[in-house]
């Protein structure tokens, strides 16, 4: 049992900052180290894809459901993917129940944009019949335990969910959808793997993957989504300001660490094979 407060004592705050000045973290990491990742996939049978991702003590469970609906008129041959996030009150006493608040909407939107603007989901493959029927994917992120840096955990869990997805394959017959008995899997749907990396800033020190106490005393954060060679979305949040040099440095760092993380996690191992 850990007591969580919105306010951190001055002595703890100073301890964290003094450690950071020596390029050390209170949990023994360096400035550019992630906590340990643990990933399980396809644990929810009722979902068409799911992932249980732990980043240190932060734990996120994500599931995918699909519906067949009409496409948007401006993109008649493309499917749709929406991301929702819910901060469950059981994850932390800081989370209150009720309709989604700013923090959960930000989590969902940052993860969504990271995926949307990378060439990640092959929306054309999610079309059953132009102008008539496309798949609508719902990637729903549930935070089970909150210990800092939900965005990175949410991003990886959304991506793992998409990779592990298996959606019944439909074809258009006359004027309705018939199921072929086959499946469209993550291998078909997903192409690029965008990774979102969050950096915290306290004073003029910048570091990756803020843990809960670090997140509580952070002046601000910046989340950068990267593919192999491109930056696809950036979100600055909190009351910190970043210099242009900092942002350039962080973009480079994000690209470098993103590639490293993508290699280390090897997310394609979580695809499902359906015979």
């Amino acid at each position, binding site marked *: *049992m*850990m007591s*969580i407060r919105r306010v951190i004592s001055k002595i703890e705050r100073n301890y964290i900052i003094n450690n950071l000045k020596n390029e050390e973290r209170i949990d023994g990491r360096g400035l550019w180290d992630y906590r340990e990742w643990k990933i399980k996939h396809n*644990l*929810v*049978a*009722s*979902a*068409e894809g*799911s992932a249980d991702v732990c980043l240190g*003590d932060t734990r996120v*469970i994500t*599931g*995918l*459901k*699909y*519906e*067949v609906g009409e496409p948007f008129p401006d993109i008649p041959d493309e499917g749709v993917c929406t991301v*929702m996030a*819910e901060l*469950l*009150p*059981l*994850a*932390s*006493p800081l989370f*209150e*129940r009720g*309709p989604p608040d700013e923090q959960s909407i930000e989590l969902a939107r940052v993860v969504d944009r990271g995926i949307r603007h990378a060439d990640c989901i092959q929306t054309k493959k999610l079309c059953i019949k132009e102008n*008539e*029927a496309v798949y609508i994917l*719902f990637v*729903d992120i*549930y935070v*089970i*335990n*909150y*210990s800092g840096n939900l965005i990175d955990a949410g991003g990886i869990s959304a991506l793992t969910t998409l990779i592990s997805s298996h959606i*019944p394959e439909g074809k258009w017959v006359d*004027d*309705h*959808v*018939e*199921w072929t008995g086959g499946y469209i899997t993550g291998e078909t749907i997903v192409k690029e793997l965008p990774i979102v990396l969050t950096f915290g800033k306290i004073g003029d020190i910048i570091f990756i993957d803020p843990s809960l106490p670090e997140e509580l005393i952070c002046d601000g954060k910046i989340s950068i989504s990267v593919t192999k060679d491109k930056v696809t979305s950036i979100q600055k949040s909190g009351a910190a300001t970043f210099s242009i040099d900092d942002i350039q440095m962080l973009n480079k760092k994000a690209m470098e660490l993103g590639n490293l993380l993508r290699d280390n996690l090897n997310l394609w191992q979580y695809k499902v094979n359906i015979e």
Partner: protein
Amino acid sequence: MTLLIKDEYPEKLFREDGKRLDGRDLKELRPIKLEVGILNNADGSAYLEWGNNKIFAAVYGPREVHPHHLAKPDKGILRVFYRMATFSVFERKRPAPGRREKEISMIITDCLEPVLFLELYPGTSFEVFIDVIEADGGTRCASTTVAALALADAGIPMKSLVSSVAVGKIDGKIVVDLSGIEDKAGEADLPCAITWFNEEISLLQFDGDMDLNELDTFLKLAKDALKEIYEMQLNALKSKYITIQEKYNGGQVKQ
């Protein structure tokens, strides 16, 4: 536009060899796995896998009541929030809590309240959050069982644990612990819970039809199953402390 995939109900709920579709006997429970203390931010927590059901429960309290007007000057209040994940069921559930979830929350609150000493905590609240990650029949019983464990894990004084199970009738036979498909296609469903300090029924609902002497059989069967579940709950609670003892005692467990 019509879709051809539907929830399909099998014609028979028993196999040729007389066993149920998932291979169970009439009185057999689905496999149950219980764990306590798995969420470190809550005051108490528990996780349960009951067949395909996967449920987390966490408890906060006694803490300040929010909104304040709900506080009672002479006793604490218990509030239970039962919620299902959107992907926990066959058709995506809407994220906002529906009527069913609100009713079940209330039923579980009423079921758990008798075992707590709320009069000792005036002006405070105990909040139980139950999140169903995957649902396959009998979630209200599973939720009650896991919520009682989470309360115990939080160290909240209780008169006893609470255990819960559903009994029902499928294809004319009375069975214990209905799975999702048996619940939907069967004739009768009777979820019940027992408070062990007085061995009385604390949760009771019934849907279906039965004649008067069947109720007796229903409840007798339920009680045997409940005893089994109670043992599992006790073992789950004990195993947490055995783990702690082992950790700080160099692998030795004191009897």
